[in-house]
């Protein structure tokens, strides 16, 4: 075990994977940075600090700075994967899935099925996502809901450094395309990370906390907000189960249902707007499969049905926060 933040955990995992497996390549805009400049590529180390040191070790044939051409980036990753490689494509902002959407939803997602199960397309797309930095409507979105909706894509979103390593490493060993969501506001979050070839299987929740009175299912950055809310509630003797699904596709339905069967109460916390999102998805799951267990109406705590606003005051109102979660939990308990 060593302590590091999520940025470092991702960086380390990429280093390890590229070391271990020569078919792993990284491509994206400024993943090294500095190509064609006086400063040169080793000076930069990527925009987000997650690819630091890679170009020096593995060179420009494996750490590929690209033009601003997201369709070509993801498309090239798709083609390289069909040809036997394991490409990691970086989308500097998850907001850019619209620019390369077809390669995600009609290509990578469908090859295996459409081509009769023989083609293999193990692309890992790293999507840097999320609000909280006043980056406004086109650089703050979460969008994991849209990709969770697509059969053929797996979707992961770690909220701890250990899971960042474990899930990314798992993705880099699997044969399926994985959409790997990294929250920009979580990069600095620290924690213990197991050494070596540590993997976290997809489709298994992390029980972030066990409390027994209410089930909170929270995604990505929302996990820590749920924890804050739970701390407050604990002062009043209210115990929360906090479930971090870690992957939304596959989703560990059982763990969620098990918890709700105990607590009878569900609060889902999602950074996306409410319509056709994961809050609805999990709520519908529970309504269908744990119908008799529910003692109160399920609660969805989500962003509002608006674009992400720029101004700090507005963005704070936009992002679901601990107070909203706390209130929702109390509503489920006060109900009836």
């Amino acid at each position: 075990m060593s302590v590091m933040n999520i940025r470092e955990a991702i960086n380390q995992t990429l280093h390890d994977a590229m070391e271990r497996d020569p078919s792993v390549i990284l491509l994206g805009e400024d993943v090294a940075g500095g190509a064609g400049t006086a400063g040169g590529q080793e000076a930069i180390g990527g925009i987000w600090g997650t690819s630091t040191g890679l170009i020096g070790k593995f060179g420009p044939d494996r750490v590929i700075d690209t033009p601003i051409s997201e369709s070509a980036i993801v498309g090239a990753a798709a083609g390289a994967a069909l040809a036997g490689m394991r490409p990691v494509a970086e989308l500097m902002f998850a907001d850019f899935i619209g620019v390369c959407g077809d390669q995600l939803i009609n290509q990578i997602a469908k090859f295996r099925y459409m081509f009769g199960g023989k083609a293999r397309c193990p692309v890992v797309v790293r999507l840097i996502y999320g609000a909280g930095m006043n980056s406004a409507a086109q650089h703050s979105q979460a969008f994991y809901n849209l990709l969770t909706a697509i059969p053929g894509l797996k979707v992961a979103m770690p909220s701890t450094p250990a899971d960042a390593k474990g899930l990314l490493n798992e993705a880099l060993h699997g044969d399926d395309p994985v959409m790997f969501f990294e929250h920009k506001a979580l990069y600095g979050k620290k924690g213990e990370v197991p050494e070596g070839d540590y993997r976290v299987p997809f489709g298994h929740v992390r029980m972030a906390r066990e409390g027994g009175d209410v089930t909170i299912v929270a995604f990505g950055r929302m996990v820590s907000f749920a924890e804050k809310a739970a701390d407050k509630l604990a002062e009043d003797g209210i115990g929360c189960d906090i479930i971090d699904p870690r992957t939304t596709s596959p989703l560990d339905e059982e763990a969620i249902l098990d918890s709700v069967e105990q607590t009878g109460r569900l609060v889902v916390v999602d950074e996306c707007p409410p319509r056709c999102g994961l809050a609805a998805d999990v709520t519908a799951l529970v309504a269908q499969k744990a119908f008799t267990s529910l003692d109160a109406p399920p609660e969805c705590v989500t962003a509002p049905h608006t674009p992400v606003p720029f101004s700090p005051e507005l963005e704070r109102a936009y992002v679901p926060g601990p107070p909203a979660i706390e209130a929702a939990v109390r509503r489920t308990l006060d109900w009836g």
Partner: protein
Amino acid sequence: MQYSKDGLLRAYRRMATIRQFEERLHEEIAKGEIPGFTHLYAGQEAAAVGVCEHLDSDDMIVSTHRGHGHCIAKGCDVDGMMKEIYGSREGLCKGRGGSMHIADTSIGMLGANGIVGAGAPQAVGAAIAAKAAGKGKVAIAFSGDGACNQGTTFEAMNMAAVIKVPAIFVFENNHYSEHTGDAYAVGTALDIASRAEAFGMRAWRANGCDFYSTFEAMAELLDYVRSTNLPAAIELDTERFYGHFEGDPQRYRAKGEVARLREERDALKSFRASAVTKTYLSTDELDALDAAVGEEIDRAVEAARKAERPDPSHVLEDVYASY
């Protein structure tokens, strides 16, 4: 250029296979035998074969919605293709893909594609893999005159030039994208190949209704690409003999256009003419090949008709490798 007799016979057989495969589909579709909608490749045989005769199974191609010809030229199993098009469980893609989605990655056929322009970036990625393998292999994207207007195609050309990989962009200009003429839809000042040149790569031009013309230009192009690992492009002037898809009333054609094309621009006819005059091959040999191919296609259709149908439960298979 020197040709071997075997090579020429093989090329002819491939072209004849494509032609008969498509002509036969045209008939079977009219009978209502085949589900979905189908884009026939007849007329463009010299393009697919003139390109793919240079390749082996480590070279890779990505194809289009009009992909039967590319598949056959790259060596896909004709029976498996026919079964796929019939929607059989025994098809190359278990009946899940159909006409527009035939692939066999094991022989470097990375997939036909229903999305116009989706393939070109994928060829760039395949070219990254080809370069990494270090054996002078290449990756080829087939695109049409319509696809040359899709942003992805441009991005792919630029990226291939920037990252310097052996990607080859083959533009089959059959002068139509669906019901629209290239004279309208391609804003290019000169020709499609000149677009590739504007991205800083070398480009060739050839007659895509003539095997020799395409084959020879590709020989030069491939020499260049295999030795430099740099991208290149080629524009092939070609024709399609049927509608955009089967069922297309083709009201955009000039009167007698198809008859004229079949007279003047038939790749099989022109191959026969030159092959015979160049004395490599006799008319008898080619006739024999035609007959053999005819039987092969008959057998393929017979087999496809009788092949196992999918069971509804199969719908859930193979979405993921593991879940």
